[in-house]
């Protein structure tokens, strides 16, 4: 089947495909999904949760008989990536929650991914075993040792097929390099290095070396009383292995070039949108804090997410974004209560589709939003069990902002702020999306004609 890239000139119709997880009320906190990521081919989909577990789904081969059904994702492997720890020196507990998963490009039969909690990054190898050796001389079929005196002939062990077994093994553990909490990891396009970023520092690692890393950004002030901003996200350029960006809690993005100096404290480019000082309020800085930054696949643009908007920036223009999309501007009149219940600090992520023509991000009430950069149209969809009939088309949702509420609309006051969609992922080349709604993972696909 020819992969379909991005949105076409007509609006894409999205359909329910699958949902993973249970419906129970009051699900345990460990089940809350904390990260979702497709691998580079889209064949695998990984999730991490608050309980430190990783679940990998694999897309099944499309059957020739069922041309109208696109391949579904089934469980491929699951393992405990991180466990809760206790830092005795600082009297601090270290959460096992998986903050980010990033896949390495596939170079042999095995799959590799990086997963990280607040303090430690791990490289996991996921490999298949479908043959096992049989016919040992010194061991019998159950593995018990045979008495050599009883052996009269020798045979050569042979590999026989067995039921497929998928094993996950930790190959590297990159620990003790971060004083503060890791918020991002990013694999470099050289496939040899990667970076990990915490609130104040960014470190560069070589995949082969676990006991050393280079510090490439350090924004910790000599006097912590002077601290004004923290690093919120960081990512390597998709093609230029010397370039990376990091975003801050003040709504700015810095682009750095590692060829310029070993310590990239001085940025090469500084992206900031000028603010109208008369519009400034107590909330201004908090809602301008960038929760996610992502390069486009082309490497020409970066997208940032702050509390109320998604912005697209052209790397060649630092003084303002080229596009700004309102995610849920109606929340502006709710900022006081959102501050009181801490929702104003929620960190939403954002993603590009494969062709960089559509961007997607989550909101509350299990709503998520898509913006078509070409047609300038947007849509609000909902991840809910009510719309979970196979291939059911998702109906666009609308929030009513006061005045008369139409039948299908929902008013701002009825939104459920505990149902937040923070993590979503878009297949690298097809219109398949994965949406994490608390403890459930929804997979949607565009309508197949």
């Amino acid at each position, binding site marked *: 089947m020819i992969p379909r890239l991005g949105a076409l000139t007509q609006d894409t119709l999205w359909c329910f495909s699958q949902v993973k997880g249970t419906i129970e009320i009051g699900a345990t906190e460990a*089940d809350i999904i904390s990260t979702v990521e497709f691998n580079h081919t889209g064949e695998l989909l990984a999730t991490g949760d608050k309980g430190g577990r990783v679940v990998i789904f694999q897309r099944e081969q499309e059957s020739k008989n069922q041309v109208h059904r696109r391949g579904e994702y089934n469980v491929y492997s*699951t393992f405990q990536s991180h466990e809760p720890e*206790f830092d*005795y020196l600082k009297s601090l507990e270290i959460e096992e929650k998986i903050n980010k998963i990033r896949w390495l490009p596939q170079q042999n039969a095995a799959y590799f991914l990086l997963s990280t909690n607040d303090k430690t990054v791990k490289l996991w190898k996921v490999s298949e075993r479908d043959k096992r050796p049989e016919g040992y001389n010194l061991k019998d079929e159950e593995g018990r040792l045979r008495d050599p005196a009883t052996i009269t002939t020798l045979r050569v062990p042979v590999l026989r097929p067995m039921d497929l077994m998928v094993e996950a093994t930790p190959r590297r553990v990159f620990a003790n390099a971060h004083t503060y909490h890791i918020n991002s990891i990013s694999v470099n396009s050289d496939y040899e290095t990667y970076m990990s970023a915490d609130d104040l520092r960014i470190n560069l690692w070589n995949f082969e070396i676990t006991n050393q890393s280079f510090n490439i950004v350090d924004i910790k002030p000599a006097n912590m009383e002077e*601290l004004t901003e*923290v690093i919120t996200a960081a990512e390597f350029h998709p093609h230029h292995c010397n370039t990376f960006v990091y975003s801050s809690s003040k709504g700015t993005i810095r682009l750095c070039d590692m060829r310029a100096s070993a310590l990239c404290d001085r940025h090469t480019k500084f992206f900031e949108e000028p603010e109208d000082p008369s519009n400034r309020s*107590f909330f201004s800085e908090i809602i301008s804090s960038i929760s996610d930054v992502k390069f486009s696949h082309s490497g020409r643009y970066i997208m940032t997410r702050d509390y109320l908007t998604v912005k697209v920036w052209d790397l060649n223009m630092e003084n303002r974004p080229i596009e700004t999309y309102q995610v849920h501007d109606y929340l502006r009149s709710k900022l*006081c209560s959102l501050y009181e219940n801490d929702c104003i600090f929620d960190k939403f992520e954002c993603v590009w589709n494969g062709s960089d023509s559509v961007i997607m991000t989550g909101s509350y009430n299990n709503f998520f939003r898509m913006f078509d950069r070409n047609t300038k149209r947007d849509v609000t969809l909902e991840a809910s069990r009510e719309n979970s009939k196979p291939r059911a088309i998702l109906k666009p949702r609308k929030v009513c902002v006061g005045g008369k509420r139409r039948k299908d609309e929902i008013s701002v006051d009825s939104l459920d702020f505990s149902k937040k969609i923070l993590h979503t992922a878009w297949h690298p080349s097809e219109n398949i999306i994965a949406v994490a709604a608390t403890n459930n993972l929804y997979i949607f696909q565009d309508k197949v004609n």
Partner: protein
Amino acid sequence: MSAEVPEGASAEEQKEMEDKVTSPEKAEEAKLKARYPHLGQKPGGSDFLRKRLQKGQKYFDSGDYNMAKAKMKNKQLPTAAPDKTEVTGDHIPTPQDLPQRKPSLVTSKLAG
């Protein structure tokens, strides 16, 4: 004399009144300041950031514990109320008070 708009209101006051009408954000700010008058002068500044950097609960501090033990000698250390879930503040926790942190032994329900 009209009581609604004081005559001769300064341009600044007029703008403030306009802001409250036109800017929902400023209205929300006023609401917040009304509820928490002592809210930091530097919003989103050091206090808020430092709190963010210190995420992670404080539990057993062996220094405090041993100092307190030394001071009190043979006396009993004050124990936590049985319903307390968070062990912080003036109370000095003992190893028995700490909730056990166990790793997830259960497989994720996504894989079910």
